[in-house]
């Protein structure tokens, strides 16, 4: 068959291959409920910091960390945005979980810095203010991080 397969036909076939691969890459991402849930929990922890005692805040933080860890093990790599397909790790990018995790650690730092700044400015509920700010960043920035991971996946070679 290769004897009569033309250059143009081979190009069309490779185009089909790449288009199918792109359809799977388009599935890389996190479910919307993850970002909304994370933002809501972030605000809840911020509010607790302002109104509850240290023990309650400590317990709530540990519970949040445990629940997030359990949920994120399945989701953090962005390979299961829907339950209909699981994107291969080498397609999604081996560093995707690290990128998302680093962003979360960075946001924790931003929350602390913003809360300290608000406290120094005399705000009545500094942790709540900081957590609302970071919740907005999560909702706006989370999907953009996944879009960047998708763009990176699209740039990689089709066949490894």
């Amino acid at each position, binding site marked *: 068959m290769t004897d009569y397969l033309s250059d143009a036909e081979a190009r069309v076939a490779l185009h089909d291959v790449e288009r*199918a691969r792109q359809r799977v890459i388009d599935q890389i991402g996190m479910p919307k409920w993850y970002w909304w849930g994370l933002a809501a929990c972030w605000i809840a922890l911020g509010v607790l910091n302002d109104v509850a005692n240290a023990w309650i805040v400590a317990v709530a933080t540990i519970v949040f960390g445990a629940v997030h860890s359990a949920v994120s093990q399945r989701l953090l790599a962005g390979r299961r945005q829907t339950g209909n*397909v699981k994107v291969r790790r080498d397609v999604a990018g081996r560093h995707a979980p690290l990128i998302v995790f680093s962003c979360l650690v960075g946001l924790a730092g931003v929350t602390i810095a913003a809360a300290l700044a608000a406290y120094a400015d005399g705000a009545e509920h500094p942790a709540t203010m900081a957590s609302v700010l970071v919740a907005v960043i999560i909702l706006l920035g989370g999907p953009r991080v996944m879009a960047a991971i998708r763009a990176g996946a699209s740039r990689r070679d089709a066949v490894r």
Partner: protein
Amino acid sequence: MTADNGFDELIHPATRLQIVSLLAAADWADFTFIREQLGLSDSALSKQLSTLEEAGYVTIERPLSERRRRVRARLTPVGRERFTAHVAALQGIIAGA
């Protein structure tokens, strides 16, 4: 079915090539996902998957999830190897043109 240069006549027809290409980028994919992405009918997709399964290129799994039957397709190591060789053969045709 496979030529010396890796060209695979079983994979090459457009619909099967698209199905295998989808599966090559995934660990597994649901029947409904493949059907919707490629705009195929149930019977057309079943037929193509059966052909690929008989050739040992694809495995069909039926996990019981959320009280409903799902059908998942997964590329076998042999299927992945043949697909990679087939794409290399296509690239070779272009490079040699």
